[in-house]
């Protein structure tokens, strides 16, 4: 993968995004409005990357993310700075987060505190001695989820593959095999848009569209083995964890794609075989809410109404199926993939 280079800021002014506002309140419109009203970034950090349809300026390189040209207009900034210990204006809280309109504070004591501001900025205050790798990997989880919510796009907890008909997303809770499933489709020759977070927005024609993430799967050793790889050949997600990256640079689908099908994958003790069933619109809404990435931030960020509207729009636009598979023993991976492939080709 090409490395982004440390460069001084270019003197040439970055291109401004077009400023006409289309009547439908889609994500691009939100971006345009943000670009109009948000203050210009000062002292942009030196590295440029592209992820989830955004150009990022970061304080260190993110080797896992595709690079972006230095003159591309920057949508969001990752930078080091002071992060407060508390967010006094918070509306909702959890054990390791505080959420307020436009702001989210989230932390892991031994790694860093992150403050996510207005969909434009993630400020990181590392714990002394924290590893850059941990700062980056954790940033791409909770803080990234908050940034996406603040921007008004929809992050779903899903892996996404490219099919001839469009993007197909597999939503599941962690540990229910969505990465393994996407990695299996990768082996069958499908291109991949995203592993863990599927970012959905509506294009100019109102069609739901998935933005590309970045080209690597995060897998537990059992899945690595099941996919025919060895963990000794792979880089660890974090130094002290038995979780590994499997890169798929060759098969990365780097362009957005219309979302044509959603699957909810559930491993269940009481299932003896793979079973597919259609979901009604109310059930779709319920599952979309359950599988919204970091849904617990939404009310505190003041985005509940907008979030429900987006889910309603998506539920109306895209067919969805529930997929039950046996939780215990074998993952029935090939059988599961066969059933899904037959379904999304129909």
């Amino acid at each position, binding site marked *: 993968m090409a490395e982004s280079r440390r460069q001084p800021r270019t003197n040439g002014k970055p291109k401004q995004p077009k400023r006409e506002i289309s009547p439908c309140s889609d994500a691009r419109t939100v971006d345009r409005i943000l670009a109009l009203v948000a203050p210009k970034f000062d002292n942009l950090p030196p590295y440029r990357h592209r992820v989830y349809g955004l150009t990022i300026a970061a304080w260190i390189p993110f080797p896992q993310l595709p690079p972006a040209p230095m003159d591309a207009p920057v949508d969001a900034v990752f930078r080091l700075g002071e992060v407060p210990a508390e967010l006094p204006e918070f509306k909702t*809280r*959890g*054990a*390791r*987060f505080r959420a307020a309109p436009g702001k989210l504070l*989230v932390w*892991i*004591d*031994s*790694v860093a505190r992150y403050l996510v501001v207005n969909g434009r900025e993630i400020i990181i205050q590392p714990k002394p001695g924290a590893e850059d790798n941990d700062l980056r*990997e*954790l940033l791409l*989880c*909770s803080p990234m989820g908050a940034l996406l919510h603040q921007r008004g796009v929809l992050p779903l907890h899903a892996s996404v593959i490219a099919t001839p008909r469009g993007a197909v997303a597999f939503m599941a*809770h*962690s*540990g229910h095999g969505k990465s393994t499933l996407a990695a299996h489709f990768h082996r069958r020759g499908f291109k991949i848009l995203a592993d863990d977070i599927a970012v959905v927005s509506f294009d100019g024609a109102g069609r739901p569209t998935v933005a590309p993430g970045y080209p690597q799967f995060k897998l*537990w*050793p*059992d*899945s690595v083995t099941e996919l025919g790889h060895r963990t000794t050949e792979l880089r660890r*997600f*974090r130094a*002290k*964890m*038995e*979780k590994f990256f499997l890169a798929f640079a060759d098969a990365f689908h780097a362009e957005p794609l219309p979302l044509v099908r959603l699957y909810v994958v559930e*491993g*269940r*003790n*009481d299932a*003896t075989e793979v079973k597919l069933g259609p979901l009604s619109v109310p059930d779709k809404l319920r599952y979309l809410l359950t599988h919204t990435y*970091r*849904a*617990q*931030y939404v009310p505190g960020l003041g985005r509940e109404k907008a979030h429900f509207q987006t889910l309603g729009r998506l539920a109306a636009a895209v067919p969805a199926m529930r997929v039950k598979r046996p*939780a*215990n*023993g074998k993952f029935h991976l090939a059988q599961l993939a066969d059933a899904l492939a037959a379904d999304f080709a129909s």
Partner: protein
Amino acid sequence: MKGIVWLASYPKSGNTWFRIFLANLLADRPEPVDINTIRIENFAARTTYDRALGWETGELTIEEAFQARLEVQKEQAEEEDVFFKVHEAFRDPVTRVPLFSRAATRAALYFLRNPLDVAVSYSHHRGKDIDNTIARMNRTDAVMASAKYELGAQLPQPTGTWSWHVRSWLDEPEFPIMLLRYEDMLDRPQVVFQAACEFAGLPSEPARVARALAHSSFDTLRQQEQAKGFREAQEQRPFFRQGKAGGWREILSPEQVATIISHHGDVMRRFGYLNTDGSLPGN
């Protein structure tokens, strides 16, 4: 009412029975609740824990995930009527650090069962032989759901030895806990369950308790499991197997009984599972 009600036990000691009773008690409907729709979860279920945490524990080291444990409980305690099933010891058997927050606790019910019967039932549940289970019941470092090479649906749950488990919950000073012996639950259900409901601040009208008991009777549960399966069963082995006390007499060898007594005799004596002279009650 705010605060968490813990349904605590070593595995296979009546916890699920009580949980299904509780679901029926809260639903208070003419028909029994479907055992596969019971919402009272294990505290160690990652999805619930992660929601209160704000991160996915699958992205964190076990230490990072565990450091937030008591704060996760305090967040959950802010909700109304929170019940969790738990199999962890009250204190970690290795570090002795408390695994439960007093500030987050409304009450705890502790389900205790004769370890001779636990050994048989737990062996069946685990799909392991009885000697293997007897050894596990005596391991300080025994941890449930400790899979390291895949992401389990639950966080690891340190239980320690059976004796450690019992003592860690029941000897915690000034902790609002009530002991329920499995054998008493079978023997005098109306009295025992009603007292537990009163203690935990649950509805406790006698008729309501009686109906919930009927809806969670062993026969009802086994019929439901036979008809539609139970999602908490392991690899299709029946979860509701016998539901009685003293079944060990037909299964355990004298050596196995002697081993369990040598490991857990003190605690067994304290709770009436062993006479003071070392003989077994009822023999």
